[in-house]
């Protein structure tokens, strides 16, 4: 008898969605919910903001980007949650940190006012807004990720901070069009275990369903490792035809064509 997966849920934590959402990164959470519905995997999404307690465990954590002021506001609260998040990252919980969230998941961030914000050290990287000021990195991005054949990742970047990876960090992707972490070394984002940091908006997950599926597969694997009862067939269904996947792949190809033509 097959077990009903609806008994158990994938645990998704979306961090500071009401504060860090200026670039509409909540689209990542919407895509997770839509894809999980296609997979018939039930998800339990917790919106965690300033002052809220993290749940006792999670399979997937999402965080987006925000303005300087909002970043400074969440950074203190995030530090209090840093220990748990670091432990989760080490335990193969899937994570996606975008833009300002990515910066705060690094070691530290020096913002446009020269203020140092301490990060939570999930990724070995530091981010700086150059003292020269007005040199935001803005525009369409096409990158190539060598991680598990994820391939082409498209999106839009808009950031003042520039990120530099430490010696133990791996980039998430290599830039083909756009700036990426700093516009100099050709790297985009960072990857550690099941955690991805990136500068890409779009939102990045609906527009890159292979990355969405990669994170979901890792989240499901994490849930299974925690709780053997979870429907392991979900991992197989992930490779079947998906309406969202088809629409995403079509959009990704067309976007990359448009962007390359504009070059």
């Amino acid at each position, binding site marked *: 008898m097959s077990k009903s997966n609806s008994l158990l849920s994938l645990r998704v934590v979306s961090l500071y969605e*009401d504060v860090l959402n200026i670039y509409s990164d909540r689209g990542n959470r919407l895509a997770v919910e839509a894809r999980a519905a296609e997979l018939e995997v039930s998800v339990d999404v917790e919106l965690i903001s300033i002052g809220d307690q993290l749940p006792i465990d999670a399979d997937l954590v999402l965080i987006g980007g925000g303005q300087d002021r909002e970043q400074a506001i969440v950074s203190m609260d995030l530090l209090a949650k840093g220990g748990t998040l670091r432990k989760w990252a080490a335990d193969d919980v899937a994570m996606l940190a975008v833009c300002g969230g990515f910066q705060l998941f690094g070691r530290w961030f020096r913002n446009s006012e020269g203020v140092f914000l301490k990060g939570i050290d999930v990724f070995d990287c530091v981010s700086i807004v150059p003292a020269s000021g007005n040199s935001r990195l803005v525009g369409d991005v096409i990158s190539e990720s060598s991680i598990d054949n994820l391939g082409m990742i498209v999106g839009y970047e808009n950031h003042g901070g520039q990120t530099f990876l430490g010696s133990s960090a791996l980039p998430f992707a290599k830039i083909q069009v756009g700036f990426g972490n700093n516009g100099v070394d050709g790297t985009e984002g960072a990857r550690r275990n099941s955690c991805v940091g990136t500068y890409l908006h779009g939102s990045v997950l609906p527009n890159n369903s292979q990355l969405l599926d990669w994170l979901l597969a890792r989240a499901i694997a994490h849930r299974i490792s925690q709780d053997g009862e979870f429907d392991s067939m979900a991992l197989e269904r992930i490779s079947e035809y998906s309406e969202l996947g088809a629409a995403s792949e079509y959009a990704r190809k067309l976007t990359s064509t448009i962007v390359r033509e504009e070059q």
Partner: protein
Amino acid sequence: MGIFKLIRFKLAICLGKCAAFFSQVFGRGGGTAISGLVATFIEPNVLRQISKILSRDVIFVTGTNGKTGTSSLISQILRLKGSSVLSNSSGSNMARGVVSAYISSLDTVRISKKHRKRLSSVFEVDEAVVPGLSSQMDPKIEVFLNLSRDQLDRYGEIDSIASSWVQSLSSESKIAPDALVVNADDSKLFPLIDLGRKNSIRTITFGLGDPSVASGNASDVHERDFCSCGSDIRYELKYMGQLGIWSCSGCDIERPIPDVLAAKVTLENDRIILKIRLAGQPEVLDLTVHQQGLYSVYNVLAAISAAWGYGIHPADSIRAIESATGVFGRQEEFLVANVKAKVWLAKNPQGLNEVLRTLTETAELPLNLLLVLNDGIQDGKDVSWIYDANFEILEGKYKLLMCSGSRSHNLSLRCVVAGLDVGMSDPDIMGMLDFSLDRTPHTETLNIVTTYTGMIEIRENLAKRTGIPPYWK
């Protein structure tokens, strides 16, 4: 003006006019910006010289949403009171658009010394160019509508826009306006009200006061707002987006009681009925507006307030507003064969949310919809914002859903994420417009929701078919 400067000024205006003429004859657009561009190239100071001619009788309207609609209402009020009105009514709202408006008006408004006394100017001004433009033109009235996220790729972050407005108004070299008109319901605009009070500039606030039209959380832009002191903004209730009855949880500021208050709002499918209360005055003004949506109410309140600042009592503005016609491409209707095509402009998450809310709450259901997403410079190159608009509320409320525009693929993907069934998606706007009109049952309405450049293209096509003159005429 010295003779050389005068000649250069005249030359700039003349060549600008030629450029507009050739653009209209040979090009597709109306040449609404090109003449200003050319004139500014010949005479960089052209704007300052124009503003001298206009002798400060200038109203600026700025904000993320509602600039064109509000400016149009103000113009119609002033016209009804006997003024000739100069405006950049075709929506070209950078410095060059203002110069262009002046140039193109030379035919219709005779700016001779005799007429100048009755000449007023209403300019909608892009959020980012307000400081530069107001330091050159020293407007008499400045209207601030609202401030939410729009085209981050072009403007940068919202906070920097708000502080640039405050800085420009507190600049010592600037002549203070006679009146500031500010939306009381937007906490991000409170620093302007504060500044007006501290500098004894007459400050007229406007806002809503009818809880029956408050939004559920569903259609809000999902964002927490912060006071400039860093604390959370609390809301007693929200009307749309960040607009509502707010107070700061940290310092003692709160939404002021609006001077021009919509005390009762009734939204119907083809009109809005309002009761307006004025600060310190016993009588209530009744009026009916032939527009839809709560955002139109804010435009009306802003226009009444601006006219008040200009010396026209609100009771005298009502007739102009009741007879006001819509502005091009905003809720504009065309009858094509037996199908009504209605064009809605939506260019940022808050604007789109309000259009979707208006459609699902007041239009005839189920809807026939053509959604258009372009990524031109004027639309914004970054289309991520569609993920902050609440497409989910369309579920079960449409029977035809088509996507088009240069980013139709991103738009239809957004619809799939929202669990909606897209009938067809293709970047060819004219093809999809024809197809959608064909598929809309006779006597029903095709609602076309589009970003700016799509609106221009669609409107031009529909106008041509139905014999309505192009927008620059």
